[in-house]
């Protein structure tokens, strides 16, 4: 193909993502987005202007070399494109799917100024899927063994990326995970229809092939403390990536009725324990078939929960949010998909009380209408209650998705690590070093609930610092 002019490139429209039809996908758990074909990917790649000073990279928290990998896609060298991405991002199949691209890389892309930005995320996903389904995930090279041992606590994106980096640098790496499966929120939180578990598994298998050892069923603090890992077990350094896994409730009357779930519990039952396949799998979840479900919150978690309940057969699946749609933190794509699937959005509405029967079963929620007032500290307009606007909505299941705090197990069992008043570990920004020698931390446990790519970036940054720390010590010895 002859080289296109800039003008020609800008005339190609942004290629849409092929997806399952809304009315069939809201009844199954297979992935909504089907992925680009080679033709679509090439066409989309041609839209990139190959900017001399690419703005897109500045929007990516891990600095993926976007322009270079897109060029390789345009040339049809998808495997080289995959390697290019992996220089900065070890989980492209995951990030291509779940990154909030519209706020990150794609938000900065110059083509977005006048038209629509290049679909960087979709291309990233295409490249990673291409590699996985053709040659299989290819191995990075491993440096000579250093003989140093690192313990990684938690197997979410922060822990996985830290493990991947460190093993390539020649260190011996063991990942300790509390649950019976590896992947953190990727496996217990984000549903199958957005991130197939098989993809997470392929990434984990690739790390295992590189030599990373995974120990499931290990709750650090209980099974072993951090001190024991460093003394008895002989680990030279530790990375803490335990996430933000403590569900907040609203402290409303009736919140303990049967049928009121935290988003974590509802999603864990369905994703990790596969309750959507009950009774083939043993773990049950509230049977919502033909019932009314209300999910409280406006983030990705709320969208995942409400779309899951629809797939389980809810007659009415609603999002109830106290601000308006503009303020919702969920990704635009998720909101859009949810609406297509028949999710109802009840905005500017706040719950006051859950209502139940004698036997303890939820049957309704008392709601109050809100209006937007002055901006608050977060810059978003504050919702203010409208007096006399209370009403009752009949519901059979409620999911509280208003965010997570940090799990206290590490804090309680490791007194010499400093935490802030919200229970997050305080670290030295440049190195992710904690107050305890040889212990580093990153991901949601440091930032509070954030994103997959930020957690991965933190894991990577910590890996670099851990490597320096280990090698420095090696010289002294």
């Amino acid at each position, binding site marked *: 193909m002859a080289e296109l002019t800039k003008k020609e490139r800008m005339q190609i429209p942004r290629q849409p993502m092929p997806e399952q039809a809304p009315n069939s996908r809201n009844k199954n758990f297979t992935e909504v987005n089907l992925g680009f074909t080679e033709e679509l990917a090439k066409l989309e790649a041609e839209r990139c202007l190959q900017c001399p000073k690419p703005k897109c990279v500045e929007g990516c928290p891990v600095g993926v070399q976007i322009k270079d990998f897109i060029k390789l896609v345009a040339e049809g060298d998808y495997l080289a494109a995959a390697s290019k991405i992996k220089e900065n991002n070890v989980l492209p199949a995951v990030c291509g799917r779940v990154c909030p691209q519209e706020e990150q890389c794609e938000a900065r892309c110059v083509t977005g100024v006048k038209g629509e930005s290049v679909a960087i995320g979709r291309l990233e996903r295409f490249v990673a899927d291409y590699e996985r389904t053709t040659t299989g995930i290819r191995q990075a090279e491993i440096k000579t063994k250093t003989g140093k041992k690192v313990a990684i606590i938690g197997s979410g994106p922060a822990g996985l990326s830290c493990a991947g980096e460190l093993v390539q640098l020649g260190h011996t790496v063991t990942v300790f995970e509390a649950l019976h499966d590896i992947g953190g929120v990727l496996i217990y939180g984000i549903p199958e229809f957005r991130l197939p578990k098989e993809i997470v598994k392929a990434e984990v298998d690739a790390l295992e092939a590189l030599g990373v050892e995974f120990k499931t069923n290990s*709750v650090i603090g209980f099974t072993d403390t951090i001190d024991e890992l460093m003394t008895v077990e002989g680990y030279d350094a530790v990375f803490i990536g335990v996430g933000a896994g403590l569900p907040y409730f609203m402290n409303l009357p009736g919140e303990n009725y049967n049928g009121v779930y935290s988003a974590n519990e509802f999603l864990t039952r369905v994703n990790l324990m*596969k309750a959507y396949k009950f009774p083939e799998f*043993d773990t049950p979840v509230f049977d919502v078939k033909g019932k009314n479900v209300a999910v409280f919150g406006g983030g990705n978690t709320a969208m995942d929960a409400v779309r899951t309940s629809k797939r389980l057969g809810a007659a009415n699946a609603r999002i109830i949010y106290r601000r308006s749609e503009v303020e919702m933190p969920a990704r635009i794509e998720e909101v859009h998909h949810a609406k297509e699937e028949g999710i109802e959005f009840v905005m500017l509405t706040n719950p006051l009380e859950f209502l139940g029967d004698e036997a303890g079963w939820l049957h309704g929620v008392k709601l109050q209408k809100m209006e937007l007032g002055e901006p608050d500290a977060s810059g978003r307009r504050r919702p203010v209650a409208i007096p006399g606007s209370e009403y009752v909505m009949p519901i059979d299941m409620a999911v509280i998705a208003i965010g997570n705090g940090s799990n206290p197990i590490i804090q309680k069992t490791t007194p010499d690590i400093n935490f802030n008043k919200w229970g997050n570990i305080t670290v030295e920004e440049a190195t992710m070093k904690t107050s305890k020698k040889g212990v580093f931390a990153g991901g949601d446990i440091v930032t509070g609930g954030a994103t997959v790519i930020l957690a991965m970036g933190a894991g990577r940054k910590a890996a670099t610092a851990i490597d320096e720390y280990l090698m420095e010590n090696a010289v002294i010895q």
Partner: protein
Amino acid sequence: MFKIVSAEFLAPEVKRFEIEAPKIAAKRKAGQFVIVRISSQGERIPLTIADSSVERGTITIIVQGIGKTTREINEHKAGEFFMDVVGPLGLPSHIENFGTAISIGGGVGTAIAFPTAKALKEAGNHTISIIGGKSKEYVILENELREICDEVYPTTDDGSYGYHGFVTGKLKDIIESGTKVDFVLAIGPIPMMKAVAEVTRPYGIKTVVSLNPVMVDGTGMCGGCRAVVGGQTVFVCVDGPEFDAHEVDFTLLMKRNNTYRSEEKSALDKHVCSLDKQFAEAINN
């Protein structure tokens, strides 16, 4: 995979397992529990660590088959494996020398109370055990408790063995006989724990119960195990499982444990189980 070293029925539907889990054996303290998952399709089931041996690297669990999974657990034999065993979870029991301590176990609750009774004795308490069962065959661990306690009183609902009546009747007798009781631990069905709390409340005797809500992760991540104690919502897996009996909202706990009753029944109905045959064999042997 966690190897089952030995397995034997103690009572109908109640089986004791010794499992290889050296890490947990070395770490665990009285009052803590493990979560067991038997297969890749399995549920996560919380079970108290009844005992452990650091030398053998084993822990003991005692399981009552009440639903699909616990019955499937009880179909396992020595030499077989459990897929996942995680722990020790939960806070250890608070143990001190109270003076006279009564440990009350109802049904399989006796197994759950056993390690704490042992620890109470080791801490110097005059330790009394009351063990309740429907009938004689359901009274478990009597010999084991006799070895570690100063006094042991079996009770049966039908009078087929020991004291005729509920554990609360025996407890009342002891208190009213003038024995100064300083501490009571009660573990068993929720109505039993609730009744014990009401017996000791007027006397102001410090009373602790171990709660058994439905759990998923057991690490404080899901909030499914929440209960209300002293008007506050707690996560039993990380804040407990033991709480002040006089502060627990038992009615709520009972209602919440019924959440999956219809689903569980359907699962159990589908589970064609060979347990009855096993009992027959076990009891005849």
